[in-house]
Structures are given as structure tokens and as C-alpha cells.
């Protein structure tokens, strides 16, 4: 269709005409360390999620040990997924994309000067700090020192470490943007700048008002809901979308048309993202306008999602290209997951529906699809594309990559479908006064059993990814040894 169609695997020509090798070399180590740690936490989080879901069918499993009870393992798993995996992978993705899209090696010059070295050291130190915070925060929950605030369970000192670490990394991404040599900003760069500015604000505010210096209880619910909505829609999702906006045109060898649509989608996403979580409070002790605004935002959120999807999916012309690129497939699946979660979210935010399904697995299905689908899948896509470029060679095992892709999709699809259906049944049964609670638990039992299977598939998928990247990096190490680097 287009004369500009680039042959696959010639991504280089799509990037700004700068020395992408030098840029990759300048960010290689920090980004690989971020990715490596992220995947390691993904495996741990998947394992904990499996244990948590087993506890739903066999409450006695690992029972009797206080630090292995559901109330501690569930937030540990969720926080590891959010901060250990998704946020860390997003940081890595952000740094790499920003450096590439801005045409700037880290630290200026060719990236190998003293400035570049200092910056790399700083970012690596910050990464160590980040992982230390995640580790200590997780152990604190394990030991019973959770704050009890959903998604902010890490004690105040751990969240302060996380915030500091983020600032130390994020500021370079924003400074890179300031010094870009590529002229007009790409769509992906808008999203990255927004995300890197948004996380410190959202995370800092939420921690300040809920953990460090808690304000009056009546205001805590809305702030917490705002935080949950914002963390997903204004930090993690923008990075996932930046990956798609940056990589899809190059992978598909096509152009992004309708930039005005991208602009509109971007601003509407920012406008509605923060309000998106408020529908969690329907019927709660908050002023009516807050929940109503949440309902409206939940439904209108579909508009930017459709705009973004039309934008990105409009580039798909040749199925063969999609089929041939694991990265491309992950990115597109992420988009489909995003649209699905948008539709589910819009339906679930309507007060009548919400009243029936809110306190069931339905809500959890939405969250899982957000984190594991709309956010993680594009991040996987970016990972599969970036690592070969960073290492300068084809490092992935195609077999393992394919298995990872299939298992992730099957596991996620199964998990979300089961939770949606199970939640719906539970919700309807709960609303029926003639059904006893014990009966409802037995209705949902088969769903929980199958959810365990889904979680097991996801754990295997995470392990395969872990093996894949270990082989990739070990291969690099062996290669370096051989060439005497």
C-alpha cells in the first residue's frame, strides 16, 4: 500500500537519523538492569498470585502461619506486580524510548564521556534503591507492617525510597526530552513526558495524604480511588501507549496518520484518567458528585481509547508483518486488552451494574486485565523489540518467545473470563435473598479452581520469559568473554 513500507528488521532507518548504536550503548546497562529486575519480580508476583488463588479454593493451604495468610500475600502479589514488575519495566522502557526518540545518548556527546558514565551510575544506583524499596516494602507487608491502604501497603519509608528512586531516574528522561535533537515531538514522547511527570505527583500526593501524614478519614477513600485510577491510567498506561506509538509505525512499516486524533486522544486520556477510579466509591460515604464524575469518566474513557486504537490499529496493513513479529503481536494484543478493559470498565461503572458486581471477582477481573493486559502486554512487546537492539544481536529464543506469548494470552484470557463470569454469577446470587451465602461460595468454587489453572499458566509464562532473558543475557556474557571484552 505505502511506498515507504520498510522491510521488517530494518527498524534503524525508522528512527531519527542519529547514531542509535551510540544511544543504545549509553543506556544499555541501566535499561537491562531495570528490565532484568522487573522480570524477576514478575516471576515472584506470579508465584504469589498463584498461592493467593489457591487459598481461595483451599483456605487451609499454608494456613496457620501468620505471614503466609491471604491478607498479607494478596497485597504483596499486587504490589510486586505494580511496582516490582510494571513500574520498573515502564521505567526501563521510558529511558530507552526517550533516549532513542530524542536522538540523545545519555549524558550527551557520544554517551561514553564522563557525564554519561556518571548518569549511568546514578540511574543504576537509583534502580538498586528502587529494588531495595520493593524488597523491603514487600518484607514489611510479609512481617505484618502493611499500611492497609490498597496499593500503598508499603510502609512510609519504603514509599519514600521508591519516590526518590523514581525522581532520580525520571528526571533524566524529562531532561533528555528537553535536549532532543529531533525537532517536533513524537506522540510517544508526549505520553512519556506526561507519565514521568505524573507518577511523582500521584504517588507523592497519595503517600503524603494517606501514609506519611494521613488526613481525615472521610477524605481518604476518594484519594485512594484517585490514586488507583491514576497509577494505571496516567503512569503505566501512557508508557504502554508510548511503546505502541513508538514501535508500531516502525514495525509495521507504516505511518501514523491522523495526528490530530492522537492529540485529542492524549488530552482526553489525561483529562479523564484521574477521574477513572472514582466509580469504586458508588454508594460510599462520599459526596454524590464524586462518584457521578467517576461514572461519567468511566464511560467517556472509551472515547480516548477508541481514538488511540483507531490511530494505532489503522496502521496495520499487512498481516504477515504482524505475524512475523512477536513484539508487534504483543503490542496489538495490549491494545485489544485496553479496548476490552475500557468497555468492561464503562459497563461496570454504571451504578446499576456496579451495584451488582462491585464486591465480586468482576472488579478484580478488571484490575487484572488492566495490569496484566493493557499494561503488561505492550511492555512485553517493547521488551522483545528493545533487547535485541540494546545487545546488538538477535538474542531471543523464538521457541521460548512463542511459548511465552501463547501462555500469557491463554492464561490472561482464561483468568479474566472466569473472573468476569464468576463475579457476575456471584453478584446476581448475592442480590437474591433466597440464595444462602454458603450456596454462593459453592457456585463460585469451580471458577476459583479454574482461576488457579490460569494463574499457573501465567506463572509458567513468566518463568519462560525469565528463562528467555537469562539465556539472552548469558549469551551476551559468553559472547563478551569470547571476544575478551
Amino acid at each position, binding site marked *: 500500500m505505502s511506498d515507504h513500507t520498510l522491510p521488517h528488521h530494518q527498524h534503524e532507518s525508522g528512527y531519527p537519523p542519529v547514531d542509535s548504536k551510540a544511544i543504545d550503548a549509553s543506556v544499555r546497562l541501566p535499561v537491562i538492569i531495570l528490565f532484568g529486575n522487573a522480570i524477576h519480580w514478575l516471576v515472584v508476583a506470579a508465584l504469589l498470585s498463584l498461592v493467593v488463588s489457591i487459598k481461595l479454593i483451599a483456605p487451609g493451604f499454608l494456613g496457620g502461619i501468620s505471614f503466609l495468610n491471604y491478607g498479607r500475600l494478596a497485597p504483596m502479589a499486587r504490589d510486586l506486580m505494580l511496582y516490582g514488575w510494571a513500574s520498573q519495566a515502564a521505567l526501563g522502557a521510558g529511558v530507552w524510548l526517550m533516549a532513542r526518540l530524542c536522538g540523545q545518548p545519555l549524558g550527551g556527546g557520544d554517551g561514553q564521556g564522563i557525564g554519561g558514565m556518571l548518569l549511568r551510575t546514578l540511574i543504576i544506583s537509583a534502580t538498586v534503591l528502587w529494588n531495595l524499596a520493593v524488597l523491603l516494602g514487600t518484607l514489611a507487608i510479609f512481617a505484618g507492617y502493611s499500611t492497609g491502604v490498597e496499593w500503598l501497603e508499603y510502609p512510609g519509608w519504603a514509599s519514600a525510597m521508591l519516590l526518590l528512586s523514581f525522581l532520580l531516574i525520571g528526571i533524566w528522561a524529562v531532561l533528555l526530552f528537553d535536549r532532543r535533537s529531533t*525537532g517536533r515531538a513524537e506522540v510517544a514522547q508526549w505520553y512519556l513526558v506526561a507519565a514521568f511527570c505524573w507518577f511523582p505527583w500521584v504517588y507523592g500526593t497519595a503517600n503524603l495524604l494517606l501514609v506519611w501524614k494521613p488526613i481525615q478519614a472521610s477524605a481518604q477513600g476518594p484519594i485512594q480511588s484517585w490514586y488507583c485510577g491514576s497509577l494505571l491510567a496516567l503512569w503505566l498506561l501512557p508508557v504502554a501507549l508510548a511503546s505502541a506509538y513508538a514501535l508500531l509505525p516502525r514495525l509495521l512499516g507504516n505511518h501514523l496518520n491522523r495526528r490530530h486524533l492522537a492529540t485529542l486522544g492524549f488530552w482526553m486520556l489525561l483529562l479523564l484518567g484521574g477521574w477513572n477510579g472514582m466509580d469504586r466509591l458508588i454508594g460510599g460515604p462520599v459526596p454524590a*458528585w464524586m*462518584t457521578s464524575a467517576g461514572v461519567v469518566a468511566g464511560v467517556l474513557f472509551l*472515547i480516548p481509547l477508541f481514538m488511540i486504537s483507531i490511530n494505532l490499529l489503522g496502521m496495520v496493513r499487512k498481516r504477515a508483518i504482524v505475524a512475523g513479529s512477536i513484539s508487534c503481536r504483543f503490542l496489538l494484543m495490549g491494545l485489544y486488552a485496553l479496548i476490552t478493559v475500557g468497555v468492561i470498565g464503562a459497563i461496570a461503572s454504571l451504578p446499576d451494574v456496579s451495584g451488582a458486581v462491585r464486591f465480586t471477582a468482576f472488579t478484580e477481573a478488571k484490575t487484572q486485565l488492566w495490569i496484566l493486559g493493557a499494561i503488561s502486554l505492550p511492555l512485553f512487546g517493547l521488551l522483545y523489540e528493545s533487547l535485541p537492539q540494546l545487545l546488538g544481536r538477535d538474542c531471543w529464543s523464538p521457541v521460548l518467545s512463542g511459548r511465552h506469548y501463547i501462555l500469557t494470552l491463554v492464561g490472561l484470557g482464561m483468568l479474566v473470563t472466569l473472573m468476569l463470569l464468576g463475579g457476575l454469577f456471584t453478584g446476581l446470587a448475592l442480590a437474591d435473598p433466597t440464595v444462602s451465602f454458603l450456596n454462593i461460595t459453592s457456585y463460585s468454587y469451580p471458577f476459583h479452581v479454574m482461576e488457579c489453572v490460569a494463574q499457573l499458566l501465567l506463572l509458567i509464562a513468566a518463568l519462560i520469559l525469565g528463562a528467555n532473558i537469562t539465556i539472552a543475557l548469558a549469551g551476551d556474557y559468553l559472547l563478551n568473554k569470547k571476544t575478551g571484552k
Partner: protein
Amino acid sequence: MNHDHHNNQHENGSEETSRPLSPWLVGAFMLALCWGGFYLAFNSGGFRQDVYESNAVNWAGGGVAAAAPVDPKVVGKRLYNQNCVVCHQASGMGVAGQFPPLVGSEYVLAEGNMGDNHLVMLVLNGLQGHFMVKGQAYNNAMVPWKQLSDEQIADILTYIRSDWGNNAPPITPDFVAQIRKETASATDSYTQEQLMAMPAMKPAASQGSAPAKK
């Protein structure tokens, strides 16, 4: 402005051919936005911090769904405790020789020569001099309560007619308003003689009001 090379064309140049969106899609977006506006307008409780029921108040502050009617006796009791209890006491028994009782009082229950209008009049404009209640003589003054609204006076009177074993029909705010209008020219508190000179307006229904026998 930019020191980029030819390749940048790919990023910033030809690709942004703007194809218009399908009008159906634009229409759907507009419809969704309109829905959002209407939904907020009718479910935001007027954006008030003290409204928790989403459909209790519309955005203009007016009631969309009717608020549950208030019980005049509950409001009346509160007003009674704020305004009347000092003299007539929480028991409604007054103080012997000084303040007449409300329990079984012919003034309150509109018995004998007394009517609803007399009760409202004396509350609105006050009472002074020598007067008889339940066969006891009193010589004191009750201050006018004109400053209270029709609604408040009606609530208080409805309350004192229903508590402590009193059982007389309620007084409506409209009736208070009517009497207030009729007696607007009165400048001084009434005496019993002045009150009695006016024809009694009896309660519309259920004449058989009787104080409880204890």
C-alpha cells in the same frame, strides 16, 4: 530549526495526512459527551459537599426527587425546647401560679370558648394581664413570638397538641399565615377579654380532644 537529516521526513512529514473520521464515530463521541453532561447534571447532587445521595438534588440546587416529608412534631419539639421550655417546662406542666400548663389546657386544645385562632393569636402577639387556665388564675405576660415563621409556629403548636397526652388536630402553616395577616394591625399583647371578644374558630376535624387521665 532542526538540524536533522533527510530521514526525519519519515517522522514529521508525509505521514500526517489527515483523513477525516467517520461522521458516525464523531456523532457517537458527541452523543457520549452529551450523555456525560446530562448524567452529571442530574446525578451530582448540585456539586454540594453535603449531598451524598446522587439523585437528591439537581445541579441547580432544586429538588429532583422529593425529600422525605419532615414530621412537624419532631421539628416542633425541637423548637419547643429552644423557645418555650423555659416557662412551660419540658413536661408541659408550666410552673404553678406563674406559667400556665399546656397539658389539658383549653387554650391549647381549643376547648370551651377557645378556638384555634385564639391559640395562634396569643402565640403570635403575646398575652398579658389576668387570665384563667384550667380554673387557675394567672397574672403574667407571655411575649409575642412573631419572629418565628408560620412553619415554625405551626410545628410548635402541632407538637404541644400531640404530646403529654394532648390530642388535638395539627395546626397548618397556612392557618398561622392567615391569622398573622388578620392580626397584623395588633400592636399590643392581648388580654383574655380581647381574645374572648373574637369568635372562636374550632378545629376542622375531630372535636373530641381530651387530655389523658393519668
